Every structure is written in structure tokens, then in C-alpha cells.
């Protein structure tokens, strides 16, 4: 089982923790889901954990979860699309309230039925006066500096906007994780730019985090590359492709940023 989840997202929560999180969330009455949609959530999580995420398509869900026959046509019978939207909404509401302290977040990004799993970022101290049972202790301030450089093409306003949102989310997450974070500024901000250049020249414990959102027809590629400035070694690099959605996609960008931040933390020694 571990093999499947490792293939899905290296550095993510282990399979047994994901399945325990699934069991826990399904036991909550506060999760506003019908029995059928609870089976839907179980199906996509279990298939992904087992390494079969390629099987998660509208047709398979329609047949296996919603009892449709082999003639099922998702364009005429949009049950899966509708219920997936209701499922996303229920998960969002759950993690905004009852599940705010859950260690693992299960999400189904728009445009896909394949779930993502991420460690929750600890709440700020003023929001969490008592740590939840089993929670990781808060990390002390880290000595590493991370220089975030958004390389999304400025010629594409929409990709540039997504890049800014991706960068903002990452900076927030890395700052919460106690890193010293710098963002490569525009050329007009010369003093800040010179300070960053000095870090590039004498990196000490500084690392680079280059990110970008690049357009290709109807798709957008969110990529990140984390490297050690002292030797140029790439410590972690990955990307996620999404079909562009006309709906607001803040949650999706936050989820990608969460994965990238987790990958950065996994790439560094504790």
C-alpha cells in the first residue's frame, strides 16, 4: 500500500495515516455527506492510496459508486460531477470548522476526482492555545533562509496573477514554518534586490525556491524547484498540471503551495 501513495506524492503523509484520517472524517456527523458520497470519498481515497489513481475517472465512479450500468454517459448523466462538487464543499466546510485541527487534509482539487493529501499547517499560536493530541510540537525558528523567485511569464497576465497567488501562499506557509523568507523583488526595488544578490553571492544557509505558473493551451503548469545555493544542487523539484477553470481557484493554488512547502521541509534536515 505504501508503494501506491509514494508513487502519488513523495513526502506526503503515509498510507496508514491517510486511511486513519479517512476513517476519522467519515465517522463525524459534522461532515455533511450522504452515505453515497461517503462511499465516493472512500473510493477515491482508497484507489489513490492503492496506487490506482489512473482508474479514478467519471465513468469508473459512476459505475462503482453510483450504480450506473455500462451505458453510463457522464455528459448526459452528470451525477459524478455534481456530487464531486458537493463533496468538495463538504470537505471545505469540515476543515474550516470541526476538522480545523486535523493533522491530515484530504482535498479533491477542482478539475479532478483524484484526492490530494497534505499535512495540515499548524494553526498560529493565538488560534491554538492547546495543541491537539498527537500533534507535532511547534518548530523553533529555523536558521535557513529561502529566497523565493516567481518566474511566471509576465507577458501572460493570467499566469502572472496565478504565479503571484502561488508565491503569496508559499511565502505564508514557509514563514509559518519559521524559515527566513525573502522574495526576489522587481528591478525597481534596487536596495532589496542588492541585498538578495548579496545572499546569492554569499549564501551561508540560503536556499533558492524558484516557482512558476506557465500556460500551455488550456493547461497551467505549477512548478517549483528548491536548491542549495552553496553548490547548486537541486534538493526537490516537481510540478502539477491543471486544466484552467473559470471559477476562482484559490483552494487549488493553496493546495499546490502546501505540497511545495512540504517538499521543501522534507528536503531539509530537521
Amino acid at each position, binding site marked *: 500500500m505504501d508503494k501506491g501513495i509514494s508513487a502519488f506524492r513523495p513526502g506526503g503523509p503515509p498510507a496508514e495515516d491517510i486511511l486513519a484520517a479517512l476513517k476519522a472524517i467519515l465517522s463525524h456527523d459534522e461532515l*455533511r455527506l*450522504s452515505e453515497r458520497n461517503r462511499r465516493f470519498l472512500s473510493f477515491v481515497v482508497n484507489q489513490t492510496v492503492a496506487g490506482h489513481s489512473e482508474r479514478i475517472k467519471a465513468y469508473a465512479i459512476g459505475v462503482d459508486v453510483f450504480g450506473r450500468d455500462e451505458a453510463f454517459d457522464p455528459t*448526459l*448523466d*452528470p*451525477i459524478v*460531477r*455534481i*456530487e464531486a*462538487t*458537493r463533496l*468538495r*464543499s*463538504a470537505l*471545505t*466546510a469540515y476543515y474550516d470548522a470541526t476538522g480545523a485541527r486535523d493533522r491530515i487534509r484530504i482535498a479533491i482539487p*477542482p478539475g479532478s476526482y483524484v484526492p490530494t493529501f497534505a499535512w495540515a499547517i499548524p494553526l498560529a499560536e493565538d488560534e491554538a492555545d492547546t495543541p491537539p493530541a498527537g500533534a507535532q510540537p511547534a518548530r523553533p525558528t529555523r536558521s535557513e533562509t529561502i529566497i523565493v523567485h516567481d518566474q511566471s511569464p509576465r507577458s501572460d497576465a493570467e499566469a502572472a496573477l496565478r504565479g503571484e497567488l502561488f508565491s503569496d501562499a508559499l511565502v505564508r506557509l514557509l514563514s509559518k514554518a519559521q524559515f527566513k523568507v525573502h522574495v526576489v523583488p522587481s528591478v525597481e526595488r534596487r536596495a532589496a534586490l542588492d541585498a538578495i544578490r548579496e545572499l546569492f553571492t554569499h549564501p551561508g544557509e540560503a536556499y533558492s525556491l524558484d516557482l512558476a505558473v506557465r500556460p500551455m493551451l488550456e493547461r497551467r503548469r505549477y512548478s517549483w524547484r528548491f536548491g542549495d545555493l552553496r553548490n547548486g544542487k537541486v534538493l526537490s523539484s516537481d510540478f502539477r498540471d491543471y486544466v484552467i*477553470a*473559470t*471559477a*476562482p*481557484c*484559490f*483552494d487549488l493554488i493553496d493546495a499546490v503551495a502546501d505540497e511545495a512547502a512540504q517538499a521543501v521541509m522534507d528536503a531539509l534536515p530537521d
Partner: protein
Amino acid sequence: MEQAQKRGLARLMLRWPERRAELRQRFAQDPRLPELCEAYEAACEAAAYWTKSSAAVGAERAEEYRALMTATEQDILHRIS
């Protein structure tokens, strides 16, 4: 898809005229709400399609989508309350 979201929103504003301002405001602020409006619109269109369908499962599907319309309405009310 954006058009389907707006059609869903319009349908809901007709259904709940007293909540129009609230719906409009939350539609612009909560990324989940346009998605739910689109799902609602899809459920309404599917209910209409299967009601007219001569397929053996037409009546059953129409009933299922009408129930889904009601369930999605409840989701939306819960989200904006």
C-alpha cells in the same frame, strides 16, 4: 463553465428573492459557491433532460436529479448561512 455558474446563481435568486444580495455577495467571495451554483444548474438541466427522456430509466433519473437539486439547495443555504 462560468456561464453555467451564473445561470445557477440566477435560478437561485429567482427561487429565493429575499436572499439575492447575500447570494451575490457570497458568490463573489466564496470560491465554493460558484461551484455549487454550477452543480445546481447541472442538476436542474439533468432533471429536465431525464423528465423528457423516453429511456427506461428516465423517470428514475429525473427523480434522482430533483432530489439532488433539493440537496444542493440545502448545501448552498448552509454555505451562506
